[in-house]
């Protein structure tokens, strides 16, 4: 197909042809085209179906405000729904498809909705699908979703990457029309750090779409000259294809740069888009203005568009949307569109001007005081019906109609901090109010100053003012010569009609009739109007339709527009891809990974890893022939209890605590006492929150008089460190105590089992006999012939055990040395699964018991809370309700029938009671199969548990498909070595 609507001129590169496809059909366009301009050049006006009624639709705009021409772009995993054809930069090989139609755009079965429109009015869903409630999920919603869908998702991973970035500037300028360029030149020449961002792929804004001259040259040429100067300034960053999407607190703006959207596939290593976080001192909103339509019967037919868009397609893209056109206007700018089109050789059949007193036009049929009352044509415009001032009507054959109801400043961003737009009667439009984002001011058309001269001068003045706030002296140079036409408008919103099928919000299919219905049903405030009719709630946020809807409501209530008020916009200004919001944080790179010092060795062994926070820890280390995880875990447990096992415990938090008050500090942050701990000794500590609940536990070693090292649980390493800094800086600012994390500085391994000492003695250079290094001793030692290391005789498993730490870089060599040394003892390396089994066997509490709801008393550790000193949480842990003798206590649990397997989360219920909440006696927190005992065991919280040892009752798991109830016996939580003889061996 040839480009039948292409006319002379425009900023497209005709020396090069780009081939693309729309709905499977091939077309050609040129660099500089958008998808919409190229389709229009090829005579394609029909680009989509409307959301609710499935009416045929074409573009009405030439920019980001477009409500209709919404298409699916690309194919396969790169398919992207809901993109606006009016801003898609054409590239060779582009594929696009229309949306919301079935089976085809020309014949859409769902257009039956249009016939049913009497039933599908405002509030239809609220009224119709109220009940029965069960129908919503199963019946109504699927039907509505199918019928009213926008584009579809691929359900495939996006193959492209997205970056996030951070930029800093003195002045952010949003929009590069005459006001933005003038502001950027003023600020740039003054040496300020400037970012000039424009959503378009070429700078210049409206100058690219007009025939005006600036300083005696074409506007677009002047813009190019200005951009060239800005590009030469090192303090100015020019960002095209960059949409500023939102204003946030304290001068932070979000912006999406479409780095690779204009190519089929991003270059190697390049992101598709970058989400920038811009930190700026001052912001100038120079985003121009958006034209608004006049509502009339059937004003949504393809071929009917905003007059300024018709003019832009002709001037910028060399496209005559129709070969015979008319203009319907209430202002002089609409007339300008007619003149520009005529100058381009387009046949302008008539200008229908609502103003009876408009200055008559020469050489064009000028119907003053006229109105367009209807349109006709299947899938596209073929004629309009015009009512003259004298009441007579005429049918005029045209295939394009430009409509201008005036221009609205594009003030979206200025209302992001609840900035209320203010009505300006002279231009019949809202302008940015004074209470928008701090540090933001507006200039040019965005501020209601519509002439080119006004835009240039107000842009420069705004820059001077913004820089003066920052103490930067700038001078506005002489404003270039440019047109300075005043705004001549007589507000006119809609053509009254009986049927009222006149569209206001084309994307959400909101009509004048819907506004009338909202009024009739008393949804009259703008916020109610918006939600009841869905006016402005589509992805275009009502950029073209909102003011029209408000004006019609004002007319119905008899109030003025300022009295009626306006809704405000919220970020994002235009839709942002989820990928851009995610950035690099997806899949395995969602968060960084932390690797333990033994990771390389463990990988070589084929270890199974488990994510513990950001850490990857060895879960178990399978041996050849082991096919089920428990084979490996049982072996690791038994080998450790019978001989010796090694486990990487580096992930536990380690905090170095020094200072002359370090002991006193520990007394304050731990419920038990540490100042009495001897040098070279370790003690288990319990840390409470101020409300008396247990926060964390771990051991703390005293390495010197004023030097301790605290261990925390893996999960709480960061919160505990934060808490300690809080205690040190905020609560007791004069304590002499210094903190630093050493978690990553040391590779730490647990060596546990009856042969632990024998194994370690082979690598430790000093004597570590029971006499020289008794239970709960610690000290600095050397290993393997002189490497500095730390040894702690502590045990989580209940066995004779040590933790040994070496500088992390030697952690890999250390585990290899210990595995080698352990060969004669058949030593194993065990993972967190075996670690868990052994601590349950020993009755040690861990994360499942320290669940943020439990006290020391609940854990059977109530005696550890010293009342002789003022530690965090001491006072409130003694509260009556928390100190009850019959409260929850940790107990051991075993099934009466040893073949039964327990499930964590099962609840205790006594015999004879139904398993309901009122009979809930507690729950199983941790469950394991004990290979030493040969049956399932558990820890649990049981009401009055301390007094119930020996009792038999049931544990109930209603979720279980197999066995909902198992009879258990309550036992001591210490299944293994309750006297602790092994520890001290």
């Amino acid at each position, binding site marked *: 197909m040839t480009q039948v609507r292409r006319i002379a001129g425009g900023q497209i590169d005709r020396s090069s042809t780009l081939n693309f496809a729309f709905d499977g059909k091939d077309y050609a366009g040129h660099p500089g085209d958008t998808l919409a301009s190229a389709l229009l050049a090829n005579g394609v006006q029909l680009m989509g179906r409307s959301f609710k009624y499935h009416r045929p639709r074409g573009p009405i705009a030439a920019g980001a405000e477009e409500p209709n021409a919404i298409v699916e772009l690309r194919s396969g995993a790169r398919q992207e729904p809901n993109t606006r054809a009016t801003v898609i930069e054409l590239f060779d090989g582009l594929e696009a498809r229309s949306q919301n139609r079935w089976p085809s755009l020309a014949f859409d079965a769902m257009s039956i909705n249009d016939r049913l429109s009497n039933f599908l009015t405002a509030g239809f869903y609220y009224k119709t699908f109220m009940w029965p409630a069960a129908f919503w999920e199963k019946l109504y919603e699927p039907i509505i979703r199918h019928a009213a869908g926008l584009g579809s998702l691929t359900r495939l991973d996006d193959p492209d990457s997205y970056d996030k970035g951070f930029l800093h500037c003195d002045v952010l300028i949003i929009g590069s029309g005459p006001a933005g360029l003038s502001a950027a030149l003023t600020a740039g020449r003054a040496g300020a750090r400037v970012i000039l961002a424009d959503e378009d792929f070429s700078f210049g804004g409206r100058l690219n779409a007009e025939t005006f001259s600036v300083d005696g040259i074409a506007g677009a040429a002047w813009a190019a000259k200005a951009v060239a100067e800005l590009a030469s300034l090192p303090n100015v960053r020019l960002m095209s294809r960059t949409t500023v999407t939102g204003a946030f607190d*304290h001068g932070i703006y979000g912006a999406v740069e479409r780095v690779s959207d204009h190519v089929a596939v991003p270059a190697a290593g390049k992101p598709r888009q970058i989400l920038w976080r811009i930190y700026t001192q001052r912001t100038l909103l120079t985003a121009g203005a958006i034209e608004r339509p006049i509502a009339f019967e059937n004003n949504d037919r393809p071929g009917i568009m905003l007059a300024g868009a018709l003019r832009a397609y002709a001037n910028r893209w060399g496209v005559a949307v129709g070969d015979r056109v008319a203009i319907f206007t209430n202002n002089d700018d609409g007339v300008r569109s007619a003149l520009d089109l005529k100058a381009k050789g387009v046949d302008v059949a008539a200008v229908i001007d609502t103003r009876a007193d408009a200055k008559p036009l020469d050489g064009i049929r000028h119907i003053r005081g006229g109105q367009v009352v209807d349109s006709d044509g299947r899938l596209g415009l073929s004629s309009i019906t015009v009512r003259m001032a004298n009441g007579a009507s005429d049918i005029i054959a045209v295939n394009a109609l430009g409509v201008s109801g005036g221009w609205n400043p594009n003030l979206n961003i200025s209302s992001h901090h609840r900035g209320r737009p203010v009505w300006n009667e002279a231009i019949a439009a809202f302008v940015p109010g004074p209470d928008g984002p701090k540090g933001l001011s507006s200039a040019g058309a965005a501020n209601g100053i519509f002439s080119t001269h006004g835009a240039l001068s107000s842009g420069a003045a705004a820059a001077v003012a913004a820089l003066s706030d920052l103490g930067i002296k700038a001078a506005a140079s002489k404003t270039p010569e440019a047109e300075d036409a005043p705004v001549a408008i007589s507000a006119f919103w809609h053509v009254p009609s009986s049927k009222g099928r006149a569209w206001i919000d084309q994307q959400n299919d909101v009509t004048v009739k819907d506004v009338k219905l909202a009024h009739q049903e008393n949804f009259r405030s703008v916020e109610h109007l918006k939600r009841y009719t869905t006016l402005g709630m589509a992805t275009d946020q009502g950029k073209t339709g909102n003011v029209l809807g408000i004006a019609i409501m004002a007319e119905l209530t008899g109030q003025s527009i300022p009295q009626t008020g306006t809704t405000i916009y919220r970020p994002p200004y235009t839709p942002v891809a989820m990928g851009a919001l995610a950035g690099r944080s997806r899949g395995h790179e969602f968060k960084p990974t932390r690797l333990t010092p033994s990771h390389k060795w463990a990988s070589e062994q084929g270890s199974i890893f488990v994510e513990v926070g950001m850490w990857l820890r060895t879960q178990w280390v399978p041996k050849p022939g082991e096919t089920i995880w428990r084979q490996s875990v049982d072996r690791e447990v038994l080998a450790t209890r019978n001989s010796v096992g090694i486990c990487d415990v580096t992930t536990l938090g380690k905090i170095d605590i020094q200072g002359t008050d370090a002991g006193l500090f520990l007394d304050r942050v731990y419920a038990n006492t540490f100042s009495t701990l001897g040098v070279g000794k370790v003690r288990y500590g319990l840390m409470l929150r101020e409300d008396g609940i247990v926060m964390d536990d771990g051991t703390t070693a005293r390495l010197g008089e004023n030097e301790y090292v605290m261990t925390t649980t893996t999960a709480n390493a960061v919160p505990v460190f934060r808490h300690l800094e809080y205690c040190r800086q905020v609560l007791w*600012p*004069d304590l002499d105590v210094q903190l630093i994390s050493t978690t990553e500085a040391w590779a730490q391994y647990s060596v546990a089992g009856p042969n632990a000492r024998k194994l370690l003695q082979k690598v430790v250079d000093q004597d570590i006999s029971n006499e020289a290094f008794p239970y709960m001793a610690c000290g600095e030692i050397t290993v393997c012939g002189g490497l500095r290391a730390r040894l702690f005789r502590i045990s989580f498993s209940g066995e004779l055990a040590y933790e040994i730490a070496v500088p992390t870089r030697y952690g890999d060599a250390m585990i290899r040395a210990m595995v080698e040394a352990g060969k004669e003892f058949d030593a194993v390396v065990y993972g967190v699964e075996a670690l868990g089994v052994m601590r349950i066997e020993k009755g040690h509490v861990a994360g499942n018991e320290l669940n943020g709801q439990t006290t020391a008393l609940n854990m059977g550790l109530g005696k550890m809370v010293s009342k002789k000193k003022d530690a965090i949480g001491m006072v409130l842990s003694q509260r009556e309700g928390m100190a009850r003798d019959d409260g929850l206590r940790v107990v051991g649990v075993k099934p009466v029938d040893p073949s039964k397997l327990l499930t964590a989360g099962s609840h205790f219920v006594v015999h004879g009671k139904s398993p309901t909440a009122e009979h809930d006696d507690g729950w199983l927190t941790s469950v394991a199969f004990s290979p030493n005992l040969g049956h399932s065991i558990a820890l649990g919280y049981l009401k009055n548990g301390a007094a119930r040892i020996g009792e038999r009752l049931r544990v109930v798991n209603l979720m279980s498909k197999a066995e909902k109830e198992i009879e258990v016996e309550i036992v001591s939580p210490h299944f293994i070595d309750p006297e602790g003889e092994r520890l001290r061996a």
Partner: protein
Amino acid sequence: MIINHPLLGPRDAQEFVYLGDANLINRPDGLAEGAADAFYEYLYLRDNPAGEHRELWYHEQGDRSWLVVTRNTLTHDIKSVELARDVARKMGRSK
């Protein structure tokens, strides 16, 4: 938001962790008479002003300073930022 750190200048609030009311500085003495009531009031009875609020923030991804930020909860305007240690000392806290 931007928090103007007294030592490091303007920093993105993303680097901080929020705790809450700066009145937490006034921790009662746990060994004093009536400590249970004092702690109850200290921990649970807080003002929740729509307007100026003094609150504790922690520069976790920065220099690990605890700060007292005076912020308007309606506008997010930040009036002052001080090192919590200095504020605590001024309020008479020591060891």
